[in-house]
């Protein structure tokens, strides 16, 4: 097991800067998720850690060793690919044995470890099958790919969206299986996904990436409740955070008076923020922090309803004018109907302020 560090890592493909000076410290034995939309550079980072891509600049450190120029086979990392990359002409046994045979481990030991891993992943009955015969659900191919990764007990496991090809139900099951496996092995897992639910439910820590840059690193709870910029705020959470443009009336003693959502409210600002009187800001509030209340200060009309079973997502068009967004998303457990006029309330503590120019937290 080992910690992984990236120091100032950049990667340029032609004229495209896929990764921009990324610094990252992944703790030993943690389940670390790199989360971001398609094209954000998360897979490139994973491939740089694996040694499949060399960084244009910067250093990769695994354990205490600088492995920037070390070939993949000598980094002692294993990777589970999005398409599993199982060798199609080999049986499951041969697929699992391949990493051990490649390292010159004796036949008897290979057989013992293949059987041990097959038993851990409950794939003993598949050992004589070829990858093309692994259909029929149960995430069999994923298990074999995982088996091939864990069999040689590497320091670090790298996973590139390994659950993205599974149906929703199996994905939920495999998420918990993966987490269990990580705890059993007490290994460092670096997991790449674009699925925030996957990130939030599995990670010890999440790094959120956009356009080659890491915007925030933190625990899932921190990322959700304390987003550092509007991109993280609007990417995390379903439905995403409501972002409303507003103006600061006055800043005084670490608090800003702002006129927002029909009320003048006081919102805490950070000590180092340079927000001034009259400046435009973005106010964020999570949909679940807006309560439907008869005496709410804010009124609007329900324009759309997305039923989720236990609760509904309401799209509410505000009667009051705002600087940009006039529709809010609200979580509701009661039964509203389209066209119904409702009133909303919220608590000032739940509001988060962002700089309207930099989109950063203030």
């Amino acid at each position, binding site marked *: 097991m080992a910690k992984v560090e990236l120091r100032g890592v950049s990667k340029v493909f032609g004229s495209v800067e896929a990764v921009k000076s990324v610094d990252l410290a992944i703790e030993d034995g943690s389940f670390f998720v790199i989360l971001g939309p398609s094209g954000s550079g998360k897979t490139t980072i994973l491939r740089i850690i694996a*040694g499949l891509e060399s960084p244009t600049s910067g250093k990769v450190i695994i354990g205490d060793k600088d492995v920037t120029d070390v*070939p993949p086979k000598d980094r002692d990392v294993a*990777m589970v*690919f999005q398409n599993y*990359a199982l060798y*199609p002409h080999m049986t499951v046994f041969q697929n699992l044995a*391949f990493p051990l045979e*490649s390292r010159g481990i004796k036949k008897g030991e290979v057989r013992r470890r293949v059987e041990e891993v097959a038993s851990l992943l409950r794939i003993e009955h598949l050992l004589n099958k070829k990858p093309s015969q692994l259909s029929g659900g149960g995430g069999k191919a994923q298990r074999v790919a995982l088996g*091939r990764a864990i069999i*040689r007990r590497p320091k670090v496991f790298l996973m590139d969206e390994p659950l993205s090809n599974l149906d929703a139900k199996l994905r939920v099951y495999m998420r918990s299986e993966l987490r269990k496996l990580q705890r059993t092995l007490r290994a460092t897992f670096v997991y790449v996904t674009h699925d925030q639910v996957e990130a939030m439910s599995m990670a010890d820590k999440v790094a959120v990436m956009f356009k080659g840059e890491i915007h925030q690193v933190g625990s899932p709870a921190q990322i959700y409740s304390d987003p550092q910029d509007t991109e993280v705020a609007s990417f995390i959470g379903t439905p995403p955070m409501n972002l409303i443009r507003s103006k600061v009336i006055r800043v005084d003693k670490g608090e800003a008076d702002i006129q927002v959502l029909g009320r003048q409210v006081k919102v805490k600002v950070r000590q180092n923020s340079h927000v001034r009187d009259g400046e435009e800001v973005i106010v964020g509030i999570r949909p679940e922090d807006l309560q439907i209340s008869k005496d709410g200060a804010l009124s609007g009309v329900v324009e759309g309803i997305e039923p989720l079973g236990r609760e509904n997502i309401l799209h509410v068009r505000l009667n009051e004018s705002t600087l940009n967004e006039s529709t809010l998303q609200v979580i509701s457990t009661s039964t509203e109907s389209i066209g119904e006029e409702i009133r909303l309330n919220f608590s000032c503590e739940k509001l988060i302020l962002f700089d309207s120019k930099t989109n950063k937290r203030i």
Partner: protein
Amino acid sequence: MVSALKVKKRYLHVLPLYLALSVVAIAFFFPFFWMLMSSFKSPAELLRLPIVWIPSHFLLSNYPAVFKYVPFTRGLLNSALVTLTSVFGATLISSMAAYALAKYRFAGRGAFLNVILISLSVPGFVTLIPLYDLVYRFGWINSYLALIIPYLGSAYSIFLLRQYIITIPDSLIEAARLDGANEFRIFWRVVFPLMRPALAVVIFWNFFNIWNDFLWPLLVINDPKLYTVQLVLSQLQGYESGVSFVGILMAGSFMAILPTLTIYLLGQSQMKRFYNLGGVKG
């Protein structure tokens, strides 16, 4: 009624295509039919007019006669040695070169590929004299080396295999690299087995060309002990002591195509996969 009409219409639609293909198939098959039938004919039947298509008695004596009049066994063994060695070498060299061209990034890769493509468009006869000169200067005339070495570099094989290897997902190679395999092991254990359909085509194509080559062995071999089967058969021409060699030549020719036919039948299913799929399936 309506569906019967539809079926009829569909058949009418493909009928001209089937007719045209049948004509082509007959044109290809006819020489083989003629050769096989002639190998069982007596000298009189071979010359009789109107043409005797199928012999009245299937005469088997032409077959042992091949071994009597020319060193056919020696020719077969020489051809087998030359062909098997060349095909093995050409397949190995071409597949490695193709793998490098398909999956490695290195300076000059594009230029190298262009040279291969250009060489594909140069007719073999153009390079015959320079190649002969080269072989002569190496002192290989009248040796197996002259028959084997020039066949080892095959631009067609490299190009065909390269195009196939491109379809093998990079992730398999990367997975093997992370699994700790060295570059040769990746090629030999992962890529090479996945190339089977393309290899079948290359093996058959090279086998067919080398086994049947007449001109090159004729140029570089003078010693009858080194004659390939095609050179041996060329001795069966005309008459000798009143014996017509046509029937015997046909019997020898039929026996000479049997190895090619066997190789084709053995690799047929893989070759079909190559032409149908052109990619990797699990």
